[in-house]
């Protein structure tokens, strides 16, 4: 016992006398487990990793070959739940299959018992299509069961080798449905139908395994359900995913059949997010894309059958497997089917809302959904394993000449780029590592970026002599794995870098293909001045948001100088093309000249290295930004991805394109992948947030913005954006207003940065003075969303109208019109420019012109062509119509806008004075109500 004596004669017992042997702190008497609380919590902070591989190297480890009564012969499969072996049952001397399940936590006796019951019930079924289970048990901490060995393969693997025709797919599902129906007739549910559980024998006949296995991990408390145990949720029915075990029924198995059919028809499961959480959110919130859209060869009827199985509400699916079999038979015989086609908009509503309930039940269901959502959030932490991931930290510049800084950064970039070519490695992208310049806590960095290793380096350049120190460190243990010092001539620069990259690859046991090796050994350029110029252009991208016009122009200038010096500097051309394309796409220089400059740079790139990934990447970006040629760009991106497996830009741009095409789920998946490779990339986070905003999933947008603020806590624009979300979502201006007041008081220099949001705030609060104040604070750059830009004179006109100064308003709008007309003349087929002209004309009362322009803008840029800007065209047409008094048209377009992603928001309609002409009309109120937060 330790005592502390005080002056007044009292003593106080403060510890048990125990000290933590790890950190040395005293352990107080009421500590949990009599252990050091702080160390316990630190253990708790570690990553939640999946089970370490059950290492079955049968050659070396006799202990593992022997599994009780079974001799494990070879591993024949693995899934989310466990590993399957071909084995010999010693006691009966027969060949069986043994599945060993790795559970995330102990299965209790109750679980095992329930599974045994289920397995035994299934064992009583006798059907050639059901793989019988022999024994269920637990051994050495793992659950296992043995079953009949079926010579053949899992459905997904077989199909990968030999794709099946649509007809064959329908026939196969019919057969599986017959097996399922037989089980249902004996009152047994499968509960986990997916391609991994369907085996095909040599004759192609299906056999269904793992009956009732889902029971093993089911429990009354959804808390103990972890998604990793059940494997992928991509084929899971919604009632299972939310843990509503009471609602699991025959229809749940029908869903599974539909999901497998979907997979066979389209090559994808109906829902697949980047993480388990994403998948379940998609499952809850979205409808599956009709198979016909993914595979045009699938006809409407079969598509309908498939979708009927996938209805969120079990009552709307086929009532039994038999009903499904019947409709499939009709289809196979070219007869009409029973299922009814539904229109696009009929399927939109969340299934929970089909059952209007008392307030209490509704609240419980919402809480239930929230709970389900939370449970799966956990899986975000069970992301990918840390092994084989590396971050190349910024190199330290030890040269006397501090202007070498960008040169040193260029070196780091080169090593990073070389490593990133290796598909077998996960390499974190540059944007995310730059923040860690000079930071020492490697374990933290490893955790933040989810990598097992970092490369640190320092460079000292003196004249033509270069000294480079590089070390590879394991972040988990903070130990050096490799270190080397290079004392070379400057001209050997690139040789050093490729050597480092290859050594690291070796140390991390990464497979390097010969193609990758060639790519790594390539030199960017032999001209060091050119390399310096190139490095400087890269450092301009330090501002992580989409490059502003100025920095793009500067970069172009530097890069032009670089290629002037070295006309075969491949990377420089690729960068040039990107900058040109960005100036074009974001409307800063939307001219043919700019497009041509990009094209020229790309041609050069292809001339120098015709097969390089970056050239294809540049072309992809060009096709997208220059021509909105989505398919062309996606094709190029696919090629680029083969040689640039770690390049987040590819996933990012794929995501951008897909969402412009309206393929929101796939887009988000790709954006999330880009984020994984580049976790601190604020631009990606912001963009994913924008996707959510367009989909009106505001809570998720806020969470992404919060992540940005965690990385950059002082980013005023992001704070303002976040405050703006509350406005859009709930028509609540207070957060925005408070933020503006706060900035005005504490950081007035930052007021110009948030002018667009200040203006919005002033408009919705109908405060003309504040609006004017905002306008004076701004620079000349226009306001607007995406490619729709409104200029100063237009806003001046709006403010004048707010104060009923009609004369001033006319003057301002006329000036705005003159400006805009010039822009339209230069690009007469550019929807966004025409749309703005239409709005101005509406403000001026020129009804016919305004309507013509608004309609034409919608024609020129429909939603199918560009989901973001297309929605805006519709939205502004509604506004034009409202202003000129064409109410029917206005309501028609506004209703459409309210249903379209990136269209009208609740806050805007509730508060924005632009919609005043429609207020009071019941049609308007109805639309507003449809957008109100629930």
């Amino acid at each position, binding site marked *: 016992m330790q005592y502390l004596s005080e002056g007044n004669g009292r003593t106080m017992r403060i510890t048990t006398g125990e000290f933590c042997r790890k950190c040395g702190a005293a352990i107080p008497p009421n500590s949990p487990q009599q252990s050091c609380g702080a160390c316990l919590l630190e253990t*708790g902070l570690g990553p939640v990793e999946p089970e370490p591989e059950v290492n079955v190297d049968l050659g070396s480890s006799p202990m593992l070959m022997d599994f009780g009564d079974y001799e494990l012969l070879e591993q024949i499969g693995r899934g989310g739940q466990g590993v399957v072996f071909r084995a010999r049952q010693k006691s009966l001397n027969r060949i069986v299959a043994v599945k060993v399940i790795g559970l995330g936590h102990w299965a209790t006796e109750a679980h095992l018992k329930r599974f045994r019951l289920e397995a035994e019930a299934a064992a009583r079924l006798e059907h050639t299509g059901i793989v019988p289970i022999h024994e269920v048990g637990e051994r050495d901490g793992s659950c296992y069961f043995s079953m009949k060995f079926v010579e053949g393969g899992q459905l997904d693997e077989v199909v990968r080798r030999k794709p099946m025709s649509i007809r064959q797919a329908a026939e196969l599902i019919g057969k599986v449905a017959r097996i399922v129906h037989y089980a249902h007739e004996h009152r047994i549910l499968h509960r986990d139908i997916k391609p991994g559980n369907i085996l095909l024998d040599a004759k192609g006949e299906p056999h269904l395994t793992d009956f009732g296995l889902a029971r093993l991990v089911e429990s009354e408390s959804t808390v103990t359900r972890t998604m990793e145990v059940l494997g992928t949720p991509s084929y899971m029915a919604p009632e299972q995913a939310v843990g509503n075990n009471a609602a699991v029924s025959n229809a749940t198995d029908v869903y599974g059949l539909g999901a497998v059919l979907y997979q066979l028809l389209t090559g994808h499961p109906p829902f697949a997010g980047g993480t388990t959480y994403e998948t379940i959110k998609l499952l809850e919130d979205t409808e599956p894309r009709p198979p016909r859209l993914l595979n045009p060869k699938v006809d409407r009827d079969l598509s309908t059958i498939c979708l009927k199985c996938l209805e969120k509400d079990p009552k709307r699916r086929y009532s039994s497997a038999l009903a499904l079999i019947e409709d499939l038979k009709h289809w196979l015989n070219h007869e009409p089917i029973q299922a009814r086609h539904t229109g696009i908009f009929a399927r939109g509503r969340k299934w929970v809302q089909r059952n209007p309930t008392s307030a209490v039940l509704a609240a419980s269901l919402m809480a239930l959904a929230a*709970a389900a959502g939370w449970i799966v959030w956990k899986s975000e932490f069970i992301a990918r394993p840390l092994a084989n991931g590396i971050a190349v930290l910024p190199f330290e510049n030890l040269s006397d000449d501090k202007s070498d800084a960008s040169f040193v950064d260029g070196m780091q970039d080169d090593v990073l780029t070389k490593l990133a070519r290796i598909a077998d490695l996960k390499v974190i992208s540059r944007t995310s590592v730059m923040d860690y310049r000079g930071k020492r806590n490697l374990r933290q960095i490893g955790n933040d970026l989810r990598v097992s290793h970092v490369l640190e380096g320092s460079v000292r350049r003196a004249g033509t002599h270069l000294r480079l120190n590089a070390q590879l460190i394991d972040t988990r243990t903070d130990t050096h794995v490799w270190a080397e010092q290079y004392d070379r001539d400057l001209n050997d620069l690139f040789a050093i870098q490729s050597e480092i990259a290859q050594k690291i690859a070796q140390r991390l046991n990464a497979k390097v293909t010969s193609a990758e090796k060639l790519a790594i050994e390539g030199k960017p350029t032999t001209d060091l001045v050119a390399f310096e110029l190139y490095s400087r252009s890269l450092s301009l991208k330090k501002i992580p948001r989409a490059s502003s016009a100025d920095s793009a122009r500067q970069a172009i200038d530097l890069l032009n100088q670089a290629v002037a010096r070295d006309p075969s500097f491949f990377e420089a051309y690729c960068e040039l093309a990107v900058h040109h394309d960005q100036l074009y796409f974001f409307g800063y220089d939307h001219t043919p000249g700019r497009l041509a400059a990009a094209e020229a740079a790309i041609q050069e790139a292809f001339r120098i290295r015709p097969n390089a990934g970056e050239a294809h990447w540049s072309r992809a970006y060009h096709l997208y930004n220059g021509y909105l040629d989505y398919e062309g760009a996606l094709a190029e991106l696919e090629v680029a991805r083969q040689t640039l497996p770690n390049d987040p830009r590819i996933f990012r741009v794929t995501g951008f394109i897909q969402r412009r095409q309206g393929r929101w789920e796939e887009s988000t998946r790709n954006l999330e992948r880009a984020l994984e490779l580049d976790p601190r990339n604020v631009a990606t986070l912001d963009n994913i947030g924008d996707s959510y905003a367009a989909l009106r999933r505001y809570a998720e947008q806020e969470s992404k913005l919060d992540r940005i603020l965690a990385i950059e806590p002082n980013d005023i624009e992001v704070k303002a954006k976040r405050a703006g979300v509350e406005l859009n979502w709930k028509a609540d201006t207070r957060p925005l207003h408070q933020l503006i007041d706060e900035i005005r008081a504490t950081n007035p220099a930052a007021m110009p940065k948030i002018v667009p949001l200040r203006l919005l705030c002033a408009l919705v609060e109908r405060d003309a003075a504040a609006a004017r104040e905002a306008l004076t604070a701004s620079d000349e750059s226009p306001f607007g969303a995406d490619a729709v830009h409104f200029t100063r004179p237009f806003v001046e006109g709006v403010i004048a109208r707010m104060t009923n100064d009609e004369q001033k308003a006319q003057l301002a709008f006329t000036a705005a019109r003159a400006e805009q007309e010039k822009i339209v003349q230069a690009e007469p087929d550019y929807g966004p420019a025409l749309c703005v002209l239409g709005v101005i004309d509406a403000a001026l009362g020129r009804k016919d012109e305004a309507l013509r322009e608004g309609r034409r803008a919608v024609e020129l840029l429909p939603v199918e062509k560009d989901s973001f800007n297309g929605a805006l065209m519709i939205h502004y047409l509604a506004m034009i119509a409202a202003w000129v008094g064409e109410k029917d048209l206005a309501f028609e377009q506004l209703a459409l806008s309210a249903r379209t992603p990136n269209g009208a928001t609740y806050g805007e309609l509730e508060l924005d004075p632009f919609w005043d002409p429609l207020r009071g009309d019941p049609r308007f109120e109805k639309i507003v109500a449809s957008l109100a937060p629930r």
Partner: protein
Amino acid sequence: MRADPDDVTSLSATGSVPAGAGMFATTHWSVVLEAQGESSAAQQALENLCRTYWRPIYGFVRREGTKPEEAKDLTQGFFALILERKDFQSVRQEKGRLRSFLLASLKHFMANERRDAATIKRGGGRTLIPLDGITSDDSDEFHRSNMLSADLLYDRRWAFTVLDRVFTRLREESHGSANAPLLERLNTLLSDEPDRPSQAEIAREFGMTENAIKQAFHRLRQRYRQLLREEVAHTVATPAEIEDELRHLITALRS
């Protein structure tokens, strides 16, 4: 549904909340934050949270120098006030964390409301929150000359409450499993102290292979991490805050 010894009110009072899932949903701080106006689910959630985290509150009150009986009354009075005040609007302004919300409210309460003697009996004498398990050990911590500040003490007790909950849940999960004694032993390895019995020793003790022990411990540690995160999640608004909250608690324990 696992039996919660503190569970006084029956869940069926809130209507047809599905068993199990409802239990979980009602202990989630973000449910409280989400609530717009009256919500029985939010009310239940807040009550359950208060039942769990009363110790740091009681500790703080005692630290102010009040005697045990008076401190108990004040604690009950404080919670009664919190639970009566259905104004979750103001709750939501307090960004994110239950821990800070309760502390801030408590300080306000101690400064202002405690003077009003009526407050102390506000609960109507009803024991809203069972204050079980106050031992004489606690008394020493509360002596004023103890070097730890009241805030720090509060945070440390909060951290201990979290850990206690996690270990209770771990124990409940393994209850009935044949492996319960093994898991009890493995629990002692969780703080990573190098001197504790090694996995090899435990393997010998239980007659299992070292590989099996390694697997078992790995699984236990993963489960521990999951439960710890869950427990912290109950008290913060978004999953993004969990790590930060854990680090805060670690800092408090290391001060």
